């Protein structure tokens, strides 16, 4: 009786909670008191698991019995650059099996960097009656057979997005497995597929799904089929073309231009493999409505890029190859005042010499001209402290800054000094910086700056930098909000790691490869910190066959409530508190 006077009925609380969407806030609610914890967990519908090994399927299911949407991430980020050997882990199957049993009403599964088998896809296809969204981002392990199962069985599918996954493309027939009665598709991304899909089936699918907003084709869809597809879906908001080349025929061009013009809602363009520059003007009619443009596969020269980009006054996001050059970026800065995100990729990453006239100046121009610029990924071959300083002062609103100077340990090309001060200026002025990737010649000093100023920093990527453990210590002790730290080829070792062991429990994960962390230190860390999984990767054999002081190849440390994982391949050893190596 008394209790009721002090608390709302559960239903009211549940209703209130339903307005709280962010995971962080949900987590906070659950900590208020036991009854709030209970109510919250029963009405939680969406969960994000940043590291699939931080928790286990039974633990998740036990706490949240009524989920509709699950997002899981598997391999560490450096797996994108081939630093994680095959077989490392990130298997989706145990999760999918468990969820099939526990969540018959599951609607959404989003996986990133996980290994997904055809069997898993079949389980998804058969287990969830109301399944709506499947996003497989940078995943691998499945074939088009698995896709066929999804197509054939998921009557309510809205979204099928295979972005950047490695799919064994056995046949393009799977697309035909969507039944004729199926019309609920809203988003389809097959850009990663290697082979041709059944084009007729694709056309029919596209034209019978009135809510289709996103269509990202693969390279194998020929350009002359694009107009038909576009006419079948004039409501499209996001389009990824296939190969953007064809025999130069006037009718192909005018057909294409007309089709583009008919897509009044089209705001995002991508694809553009094999661009024939003379076909680019076909998109001019819609340039003024574009907010996002991904030209990172378009191997066209700066003049053509300039003509295109200068027409996109509403552009917020541009991904492009360094063919755009400094000149092109200057035009970008003058034309696209709403730009929020810029990514410039290298056209010739392994080249001996610069093949394009793209330098630090391009980035400086954009930082000057685009007041809303927040997110930068920039590959270049030279950088100076002065430029970084200018960029930092121009754009204190930067939240993501990733700079890759292609040659490791390149100094300031003007002064030959390290780039400590330049990056220091970035972290000092950009107070909301959440993500930072360093490159160039860097000493421990830059880490001092990062530790001092990088208070909001959540993710830091470091390569070929620093002089000593002090560098690592600065970061671990100074960056209060650090969640992910990935380091390769730096002289960081045991001292900083062990001195900051407790910090690691406040982070999602730490990756260190080709550093100076000894096997002995890894063992100590594993023994002292039971809530961390300390995993040593070594492809040359068991680490205990070498002296304790010898450095481990790769170290991956992450917090977990699930204990050491049981699916490790032969080259991964866990340092747990049994102080006996567990080799699976």
């Amino acid at each position: 009786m008394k209790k009721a006077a002090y608390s709302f009925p559960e239903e009211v609380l549940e209703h209130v909670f339903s307005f709280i969407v962010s995971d962080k806030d949900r987590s906070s609610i659950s900590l208020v008191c036991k009854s709030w914890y209970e109510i919250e967990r029963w009405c939680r519908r969406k969960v994000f698991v940043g590291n699939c090994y931080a928790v286990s399927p039974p633990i998740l299911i036990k706490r949240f019995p009524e989920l509709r949407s699950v997002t899981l991430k598997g391999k560490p980020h450096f797996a994108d650059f081939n630093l994680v050997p095959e077989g490392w882990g990130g298997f989706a199957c145990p999760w999918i099996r468990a969820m099939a049993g526990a969540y018959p009403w599951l609607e959404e599964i989003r996986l990133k960097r996980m290994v997904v088998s055809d069997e898993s896809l079949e389980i998804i296809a058969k287990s969830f009656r109301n399944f709506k969204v499947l996003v497989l981002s940078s995943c691998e392990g499945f074939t088009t057979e698995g896709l066929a199962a999804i197509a054939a069985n998921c009557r309510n599918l809205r979204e099928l997005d295979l972005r950047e996954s490695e799919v064994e493309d056995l046949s393009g027939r799977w697309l035909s497995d969507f039944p004729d009665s199926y019309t609920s598709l809203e988003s389809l991304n097959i850009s990663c597929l290697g082979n041709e899909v059944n084009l007729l089936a694709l056309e029919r699918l596209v034209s019978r799904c009135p809510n289709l907003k996103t269509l990202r084709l693969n390279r194998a869809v020929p350009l002359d089929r694009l107009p038909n597809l576009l006419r079948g879906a004039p409501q499209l908001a996001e389009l990824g073309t296939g190969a953007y080349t064809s025999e130069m025929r006037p009718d192909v061009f005018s057909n294409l231009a007309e089709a583009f013009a008919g897509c009044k809602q089209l705001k995002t363009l991508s694809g553009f493999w094999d661009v024939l520059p003379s076909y680019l003007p076909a998109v001019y009619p819609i340039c003024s409505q574009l907010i996002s443009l991904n030209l990172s596969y378009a191997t066209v020269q700066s003049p053509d890029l300039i003509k295109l980009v200068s027409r996109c006054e509403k552009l917020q996001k541009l991904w492009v190859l360094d063919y755009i050059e400094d000149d092109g970026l200057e035009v970008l800065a003058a034309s696209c005042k709403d730009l929020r995100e810029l990514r410039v990729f290298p056209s010739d990453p392994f080249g001996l010499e610069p093949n394009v006239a793209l330098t630090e100046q391009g980035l400086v121009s954009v930082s000057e001209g685009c007041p809303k610029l927040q997110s930068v990924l920039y590959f270049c071959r030279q950088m100076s402290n002065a430029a970084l300083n200018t960029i930092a002062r121009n754009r204190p609103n930067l939240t993501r800054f990733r700079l890759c100077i292609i040659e490791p340990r390149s100094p300031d090309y003007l002064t030959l000094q390290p780039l400590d001060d330049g990056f220091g200026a970035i972290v000092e002025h950009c107070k909301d910086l959440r993500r930072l990737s360093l490159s160039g010649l860097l000493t421990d000093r830059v880490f001092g700056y990062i530790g001092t100023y990088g208070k909001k920093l959540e993710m830091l990527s470091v390569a070929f930098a620093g002089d000593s453990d002090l560098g690592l210590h600065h970061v671990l002790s100074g960056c209060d909000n650090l969640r992910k730290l990935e380091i390769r080829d730096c002289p960081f070792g045991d001292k900083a790691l062990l001195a900051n062991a407790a910090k690691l429990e406040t982070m999602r994960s730490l990756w260190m490869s080709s550093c100076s962390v000894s096997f002995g230190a890894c063992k100590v860390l594993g023994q002292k910190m039971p809530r961390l999984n300390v995993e040593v990767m070594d492809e040359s054999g068991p680490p205990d066959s070498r002296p304790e002081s010898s450095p481990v190849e790769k170290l991956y440390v992450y917090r977990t409530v699930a204990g050491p994982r049981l699916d490790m391949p032969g080259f991964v050893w866990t340092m747990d508190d049994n102080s006996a190596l567990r080799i699976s």
Partner: protein
Amino acid sequence: MMDDSRRRRRSSHNKFSEEKELELRLGPPGEEEEEDEEKDEDYWSHHNENKRERNSDESDQSPLSLGYFSSQRIYNYHQDQATKAKASSFLQNMSMVGKESKDAISSSQPCRSEVIEFHNGAVCAEKKALSSPSSANTAAPNSSQKRSAAGPVVGWPPIRSFRKNNASGSTFSKPPLGSHHNHHHHLNLNVEDKAANNTINKEHVNNISGPPNKGMFVKINMDGIPIGRKVDINAYGSYDKLSSVVDHLFRDLLSAQRRDSCGGGSIEKQNQEEEKTMITTGVLDGSGEYTLIYEDNEGDKMLLGDVPWHMFVSTVKRLRVLKKSDLAALSLGGKQGHIHHSK
């Protein structure tokens, strides 16, 4: 933090006399890198820490640059323990750092000249071998100082594999302005481009499927190396880069092999240097002692460079580096079959 720095300054005083000794020893790197490895490891990093601490306080130009160079060397010393000839990587690092300004290096770095003297005659050969074979004839005078690209550093630069072939994917479009592509001419790629542009474009779209998703690893064997390796063809978008990578790979393997079988010593070093120049300089243009061939999907052994890169990628099954003299034997109709040229 304060405690740390105080502690470090104290320990720096203790180490001061050792440091003096150390500075004198900043001479021939070859010597000291082979001795006292494990023992000095921690010491070197401390030394470096102290130097940096003092340098930043004094903000003096030349100790600062000395510090960088020695830290460069020290750092790579750590890294190179497990692999490569130390002397060659040292030179690589020195030349890389000094890329833009040779003068700055020579004025502030007495030990460097010692290094050069130590290696003496071998240095010129080393420098030649450092730069990519096919660009040797187009290289500017100081380009021999530049470090060759595409020494297999895994995962660097950090781009996804499906992005790696972008430039080369445009064998059919104009090469970028101001690039050093004139060394393509002996591969006849430009001629083929113009002639076959239309038909190859279509083939290109249909046969060469999508952005290269997986790394495409093919076996590569070299005469004289018992154990083969694998290279990711998809990571290198042109014949030049592939040949450069192969060059590096086998130079390193061969020298490692020689080192293992005969032990250390300065005479052996001389032999290693010779070995380096002998190997695969000019794998494609035929000027070196060795040559690179491949086996295609029909089992035929082929010379590189005849077909456009993409066609090569789709038909190559394995690679082989062999002595040119052996090549002649093969084509004389040995059991392994004939060497074919594509039409």
